[in-house]
């Protein structure tokens, strides 16, 4: 029963259901803050970390690293949270904590550092021009690069008559981006 529930929730979240996300957020928020208090984390920081943990969970669901939850959602959140709390302490105190991933205790494999660094020049430009693309382009690129769908899958999702059409549409989108960037360089 429990497993079936979390499977549903994953599907809902993957489909972009805000209410499901909110449910998870509300259900675990207060215990998480309580839990952070044990590690001397103030509420403001605890909330920030909690939100990041939710995002990481979300991203791992979206990019397909989590397809069904072997543990309860809260276990994932606390594992990520713990890791983030140690990171925070390390950054604050500069005391080198032993850097083993605490997450491994729970046998959960997650990508917790998807985008830490600053953007390079090219990335800044891509950032600027991506938002200027048409919705169709944005959707294709998001499905491919962010959600990790194959071109075959996207052909189906977006109702293209066949993969070739999608492929040429996608390369038109990329060319547009590259052209815009070229002008700036």
């Amino acid at each position, binding site marked *: 029963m429990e497993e079936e529930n979390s499977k549903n929730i994953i599907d809902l979240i993957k489909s972009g259901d*805000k209410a499901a*996300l*909110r449910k998870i*957020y*509300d259900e675990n928020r*207060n215990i998480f803050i309580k839990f952070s208090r044990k590690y001397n984390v103030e509420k403001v920081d605890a*909330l920030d970390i909690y*939100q*990041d943990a*939710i*995002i990481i969970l*979300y*991203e791992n669901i979206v990019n*397909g690293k989590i397809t069904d939850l072997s543990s309860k959602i809260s276990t994932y959140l606390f594992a990520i949270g713990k890791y983030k709390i140690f990171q925070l302490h390390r950054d604050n105190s500069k005391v080198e904590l032993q850097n083993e991933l605490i997450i491994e205790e729970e046998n959960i494999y997650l990508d917790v550092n*998807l*985008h830490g660094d600053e*953007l*390079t020049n*090219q*990335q800044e430009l*891509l*950032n600027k021009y*991506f*938002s200027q693309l048409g919705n169709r382009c944005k959707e294709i*690129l*998001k499905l*491919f*690069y*962010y959600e*990790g*769908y*194959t*071109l075959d899958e996207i052909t189906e999702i977006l109702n293209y008559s066949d993969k070739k059409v999608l492929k040429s549409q996608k390369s038109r989108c*990329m060319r547009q*981006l*590259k052209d815009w960037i070229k002008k700036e360089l």
Partner: protein
Amino acid sequence: MSKTDLIEKYFSNSLSPKEQMRFNELLQSDEKFKKDFTIQKDLQKVIARNQHNDLKKTLQDFEKDRPVLNLFNISKKWLVAASILILVGLGFVFLKSSFYPSPEKLFVENYEPYRNIVLPIERGENANTIEQSAFIAYENKNYHKAINLFNSVPKTNTTYILFYKSMCYLSLNKTNEAITLLKKITYSDYEANSEENFNELANWYLALAYLNIGETEKASDQFSIIVNDDRDVYKKEDSRKILKYLN
């Protein structure tokens, strides 16, 4: 397999070990391949970052939307105490409303438009005069139409016309208009030639009208006038009952 296909497979995580080796080699040796791949990898990062920021904003909005009163932070003891207080409070409100109906409720329970005693209308009879049309509309509870017609009769200021107009207003919940008319009638002299004493009727309806707008003090005064009348006036007994609720 083309270079484009290799990159495509990289992004859908489906490179075989052999393909992965070729991919790595190309990355080292083929400048164009590397450039082509890097821009896509960068795009991936940019999209992920955008999504991340959007999501963070969504979560912050969730946080802002949270109810101010956080029940989880209040100890159980207080919650129990508060619940009991609320129950007791509700009990009082309930008791009060069952024994002491609100003024508005008293109005609804007691108000009934006065029957047409001026121009009794036979079923199916056609209207010959405006006044007759007005009373037909009145009996059919078509109060808007009745008001318009009462306004068009030759002697609009006759007491009984004013009285029935006030009935229309009360029925339409235009209480203040009704009060203006009813006051006029209660101040006017007894009309000797009228079969019914509209003064008496107006006293009762004026009292009810005050109830309907929550003017309980004025209503009380008005009911007292009725109760204290030596004569056997209209609705004396009902007025006495209502007065008990009001005091």
